[in-house]
Structures are given as structure tokens and as C-alpha cells.
């Protein structure tokens, strides 16, 4: 692979440059128009790109907002290590929020199922954190190509005081004119990567040499197979079913979430280039590997209305 070629080519105005410029414009617009901004950092590849864009948007300064990670306590250990290391390297302000009420109730994906766990630890956890600090704008890494209902979501997506999304009352966004007006208690979710696709994200990571969690790269890991999904045995909290023996397989992840809810794929991709090749060859869209999206045909739309990011 030839990084030098890519570096010189980046001075021209390609479509990735256009996506980058648009995302930077969106981030600067939020910061200028809102009082208290936070960037949701989920540690995944989209968050890595988002953080990289934020560093560029406010250069030579630092991003004028903190990062917020809503920790469900079931993330992969490598994700947490990566999160803390990156925040330190870049010198950005990182906040971690855990829904203590959920912890006290012992909510977990295995004991309570994916839907309740996600609702309590992720959706309600996020709402708690936003209310606690009074953030009126939260920047997130969602893309319109991820899901049918996201294809219609605005870049500045309005939430009422209860964090609900009303798909029938969305504000038109002509040109690049975003409307950040809101009442007290209401907030805006902002999606600078709206017009990016999964492939764009990987090409950009490749071009800009952006660090991502090592879980995206294949290596031998202990896994168990459950209804066509490969679940990694990341720590001893995963109860093994009778007769179940973890096998060592060469696997990696296309998306990262809570480890018992995120399926691995068998792969030999050990570099970003390999991942891009695999993505191009792949005949499956990425969210298939996340168990929660299979809860129902319109489940993402419903979760979003309830305040899931």
C-alpha cells in the first residue's frame, strides 16, 4: 500500500474532500449556534472519524466540547482501553456516564435480554447524561445509509424536552442553512456523517490514517456460535450453555456494541485495506451483525423515537 500517493492526491478536491468539508461545516455550525455542545463518542469507527473531523474543524485549537461515552458496562475491554488511550493522546476532555440505577438493578444483556438492556443502559443512560449536564446539542456519528428511517432524518435533528423524535415534524434543511432555534429543555442531535456511507468511512480512515479499535481487525479469538451469530467470550460474565466450548477462530467485527450483542464474522482482514476489500466483496449490510436491530422490522425507528441515538 502506498500512503505517499494518497497524501499528495488529497490536495485535490475529491468527493472525500467534499464530505470532509461538509462535516466540518456542520460541526462549526453547531458550536456557533448552541450553548452547550457534547460529542457522543461510542468508540467505534464512525466515532473515530467524527473525532478526527472535530480535531480538523477546530485546528489549531482543540474541539470546544467534551466527548461523552455512555458506558453500558458490557463493552469489549479493548474498546475501553482504546477510548482512554485516544482521549489522552489527543488531549480532549472525555466524560463517561454509567446509568447507576441500571447497575443497581443488575440490568444486563444476558439476564434481561437485548431490548431492556439497551433501553436502560444506553437510551436512558444517554438521556440521564444529557439532562444532568444540560447539553442542548449532541453530535453523533449516525449515517443515513445505516437504516431506512435514518434516510429521512435531518442533519440537525430536533428532540423535544423528553428527547423524543417526531418524524412528522422535521425542519426542512435547504442549502446549508440549519435551524438550531429551540425552546428551553429541548435539544438537537447533530449528525455530521449523514451523507457518508460505510465504505466512505473506511476509505477516509485509510486515507487519513485514523486509529481504530483493534477489534475491527481479524485475529484468533475465543468464540461461541449462537443462532448463526458468533459471540466472542470477552470475559467470564458470558455464561456458557451446557456442552458449549469456546472455539478459537480468526474473527473480526464490522460494528462494535455490547459484546454479547455483537456478532463477529470470520475473516482474515488484518489491515484497513483488507477491510475495504472485504466490504466491497461483502454481500451483507453491516447492521445484520447487531442483534438488537433484528427485534422487529421498524425497531430502529421506534428506538429513535424513544431517544436511542
Amino acid at each position, binding site marked *: 500500500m502506498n500512503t505517499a500517493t494518497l497524501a499528495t492526491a488529497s490536495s485535490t478536491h475529491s*468527493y472525500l474532500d467534499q464530505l470532509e468539508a461538509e462535516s466540518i461545516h456542520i460541526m*462549526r455550525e453547531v458550536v456557533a449556534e448552541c450553548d452547550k455542545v457534547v460529542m457522543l463518542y461510542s468508540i467505534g469507527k464512525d466515532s473515530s472519524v467524527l473525532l478526527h473531523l472535530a480535531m480538523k474543524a477546530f485546528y489549531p485549537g482543540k474541539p470546544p466540547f467534551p466527548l461523552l461515552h455512555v458506558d453500558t458496562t458490557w463493552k469489549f475491554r479493548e474498546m475501553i482501553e482504546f477510548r482512554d488511550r485516544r482521549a489522552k493522546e489527543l488531549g480532549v476532555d472525555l466524560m463517561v456516564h454509567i446509568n447507576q440505577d441500571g447497575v443497581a438493578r443488575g440490568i444486563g444483556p444476558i439476564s434481561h435480554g437485548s431490548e431492556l438492556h439497551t433501553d436502560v443502559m444506553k437510551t436512558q443512560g444517554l438521556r440521564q447524561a444529557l439532562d444532568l449536564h444540560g447539553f442542548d446539542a449532541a453530535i453523533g456519528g449516525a449515517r443515513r445509509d445505516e437504516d431506512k428511517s435514518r434516510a429521512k432524518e435531518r442533519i440537525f435533528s430536533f428532540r423535544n424536552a423528553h428527547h423524543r423524535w417526531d418524524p412528522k415534524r422535521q425542519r*426542512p434543511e435547504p442549502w446549508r*442553512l440549519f*435551524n438550531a*432555534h429551540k425552546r428551553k429543555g429541548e435539544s438537537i442531535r447533530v449528525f455530521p456523517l449523514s451523507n457518508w456511507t460505510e465504505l466512505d468511512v473506511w476509505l477516509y480512515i485509510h486515507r487519513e490514517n485514523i486509529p481504530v479499535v483493534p477489534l475491527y481487525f481479524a485475529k484468533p479469538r475465543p468464540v461461541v456460535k449462537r443462532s448463526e451469530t458468533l459471540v466472542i467470550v470477552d470475559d467470564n460474565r458470558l455464561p456458557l450453555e451446557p456442552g458449549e466450548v469456546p472455539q478459537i477462530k480468526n474473527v473480526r467485527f464490522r460494528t462494535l456494541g455490547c459484546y454479547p450483542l455483537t456478532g463477529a464474522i470470520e475473516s482474515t482482514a488484518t489491515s484497513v485495506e483488507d477491510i475495504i476489500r472485504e466490504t466491497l466483496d461483502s454481500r451483507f449490510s453491516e447492521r*445484520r451483525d447487531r442483534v438488537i436491530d433484528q427485534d422487529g422490522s421498524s425497531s430502529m425507528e421506534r428506538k429513535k423515537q424513544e431517544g436511542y441515538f
Partner: protein
Amino acid sequence: MNIPVDPVSIARDAVIYNHEAKSLLRFIACGSVDHGKSSLLGRLLFDAGLVLDDQIDALRKDTGQLTDPVEDLDFSLLFDGLAAEREQKITIDLAYRFFATEKRKFIVADAPGHEQYTRNMATGASTADIALILVNAQAGLTQQTRRHALIAATLGVRHLVVAINKMDLVAYSQATFAAIEAEFLKFADRLGDVSSTFIPVSARGGDNVVKRSPHMGWYRGPTLMEKLETVDVTPRAANQAFRMAVQWVSRPTPDFRGYCGMIAGGEVRPGMEILVQPSGQRTRIASIVTANGELDRAGVGQSVTLTLTDDVDVSRGDLIAEGTRPAHVSDRLDARIFWMGQGTLAPGGRYHIKLGTASAAASIAGPMQLIDLAEDAAVKSVDRLMSNEFGTCRLELDRPLAADGYNQNRETGSFILIDAESHDTVAMGLIEVPAIAATATRGASAMTAVPMPRDLYKLFGINANQARSLAKTLSWRVMGSVVTFLVALLVTDNTAIASSIVVAEIVIKIAFYYFHERIWLLAPWGRS
């Protein structure tokens, strides 16, 4: 990793290594409810090999077509969005789709066809390079089709791709195709500087979508995909004036002060003279800062941080404009308005205006006109605009703002109106060449600084360019007449005759000079 060398892997590696050469095309797809837009877009993606297996599985479940051959699936359901829409079997909202071929990445604004959702179409068209307009070959041109073309052209879309669909239902008839093309072209005269391409397609059979149709040998033009991949969208205004609205002031350390923004027009270089508008302060660009290092030039669409050579007062909402070609500064705007609010837009209404990065309070002043999109843009005097109507009015602002005409620059010539109570975005505005300021404003640009009683020309009900022509005519006349009088007096030595000649000359020549000047205005030849 060991990659075998085969054509597929070469094409795949081209995506990794050659994507820097790939361009971005934004287009809007519009069509009436039954013209087959979703089917056509679905077919476009399927034939281009861009629909994934699990999407096809989901499609089979949704349609109940569990065993039908894959080519016969109802691809329109690929684009079915919200559950609310599926329940009501209609498309409510503008959706964005993405796909990429080896040549281009496409961002598609998929606009619902219903008349009441004009707002979605206008929104999608505002950033589109081209418009894909669907026509049902059986139904021919409809009022909806004309409406879509009018909205697209109004919002500055310069290329229309007219896909005449359902050709299979008219026996692939060349005559039907030619008749629709001719009728559209006759109407297209009204759209101004817009080029149109006509493609006969069948979404159901995939004819001329990605693959050439075996049924229409008479058609020699490009397929839809070929057209989308090759249409030239380089900005026409190569010599556009530099514009950048200041989004945010960057002050990370006491000795750095940078102005962040996305370049909305032209090109900038260090050393270039600029004007900060509306304040009118003049200074120069010191440097163009980006995280990838300082640039020696930057152009339209780039997000940059500019530093200036002098310590001038610049804040969010100011426009940094080319020193020799500034924007207009005015507290009055004449504009064409798409009204999207629930109630009506009427004189006296008060709103927040967002123009570039600047905000102000705006009130609506008369007179108001409706541009009736259902009657090929017939203009009618009205006292208010109803929801989803398009018209013209004047806005009075509580402070002067810098702007261009929409025809000169889409970014600096557009605005939105925001309702002060609901905070909704209720209108899209397209600025006509700005009206001259009613009050003297600091740093008014050269074009607004008319050195005579500023509102005099308004008594004549004419616009600024005509007023300027008239002023030049009068000053030239006074000088010319004095000379004529003196010459006539020298030759005839008779004051009465000399006076008569001057009077006749004044009347005749004023009229001729005025028309001569207006005729010259029509000729762009020799202007810088």
C-alpha cells in the same frame, strides 16, 4: 494477504486507490405519484449490482414474492421509509439515498410527488446539481411534471434528465417518446438557461436504465446510468467573486485569531484584498489555515480558517468578500419565497432570518405576488401566500446584511425564515438583486452607492440599473447641450435659433441615448 490478480480484484483495488479521482453528484429525483420513481431508482441500483443479498431477502419478505425470479421483484419497496409511511402507503418526507459506481458517488434526494409536499422538492433541489424528472409515457406531460421542472430550474438546477418511463406500456413507440420530448422542449423555453436530456426507459424491464434496451434500437443516446456518470457539473461561474461567511472565530491562543467558514464562491489566496461586510472594513488575507497545513489557495466548497493582516473587528455572521467585487449590503431584500409554514405569509409578518451565517429580524412588506406553479408560473397580485405557495415579496431587516442575487451565488443569495414562536423553518428565500438600502449604511458596496438622492428612481417605478442609466443620460445631456448651444451660437450668431436646436436635440437625443444604453446593457461583450 495474497490477492489473486483477476479483473474483479483490479476493479476493487481501483476503489481503494483511485477514489481521489471520483467526483460527487447530487441529484434530485422527482415524479408524480404513479410515474414509477421508486421503481426506477430501485432498478438503477439493482442493475448496477448495488443491492445487497440481505436487502433482497427483506424485500422478498415485504412483498411476499418469496419464489419469484430476482429480476421481477418490486424494487420500489427498497425505498420505503418510515413505518408511518408504510401504514398510510404514501411517502411523507424527503429521503436521501447513496450509491457509488466506479466513476462517481451519488447523493440522491428522493422527493415525494404530491403537490402539498412542494417544500420537500424545493429543499432537495436547493443543493442538487441535476434533476431527474420522471414522466409516465402513457400519461404524457402533466401539470406535476411542469411544476417539478419549474421548481428545479428556479432553485438553480441547470441540467434536467427527463426519463420517460413505462415505455413497455406504449409498445416502445418512438413517436410517443418524440411527442413528449417536443412538448417538454416547448415548455422548457420558460425555464431559462437549462439543458434537458430525454431518455426512454422501462423501470420494470430495466430498459435503458443501466443496460441498453433491446426494444428501442431507434434510441441512440446514453442510458440513464451513463448520463448520470458523465453529466458535467463543474461550476459554470468560473470567474465567481470570492465569498466566505464567517461561522466561528477561532482564538485558541492569545496570538492566533482565525475566521472559520466554508468558501461559498470564488477562490482565495494569501495577500488578496478583502472587504468585511456589512461593516466595510478593508484588509488582506494573511494565511489560509487547515489541519493539513497552510494552503496557497482555496476554492468553493472548502472549509478553511482565514487569518487577516490587520486587527479588524470580525464576528460570526460577517461576510468576507473579494475587495474589488463585494456583495450588496442592504436592510431590504426583494426575494422569491417558498412558503412552507402552516399558516399564511402576509405583509406585517415578523420572522427570524438566517442568511449564510448571519441572523436578523425580518418583517414582510408588500407588495406581494404569487407565482402560480400550477399555471406555468403565471404571476398574480395577492395579499398573502398559502402553505406550499411560491411568490415574491420584500423583507425589511432590523440591520443591513451582505448578500448576492441568487442567480449569482446560491449560497450568499439564499436564506430561510424561522418562526419566532414555533422555531420551525417556515420559508426558503431566493434573493433578487438586493434592493438599495433605505438608510445610508456604513461600507455600502460600490453598486449600492448611487451618488444622488437614493430613492428618487423609485418614484418612476424602475429598478436600480435603469435608474443608473437615466442618471448617466441626464449628466451627459447637460454637458452635451451646453456644447451644442455654444457651437450653434458661434455658427448662426443667433440665440433664438441656437436655443431651438438645443431644445430639439435634448428631446430627441435623450430618448435615443437611453435606448442606446439599454441595448448595450444586453451585450455582455467586452465586460470584465
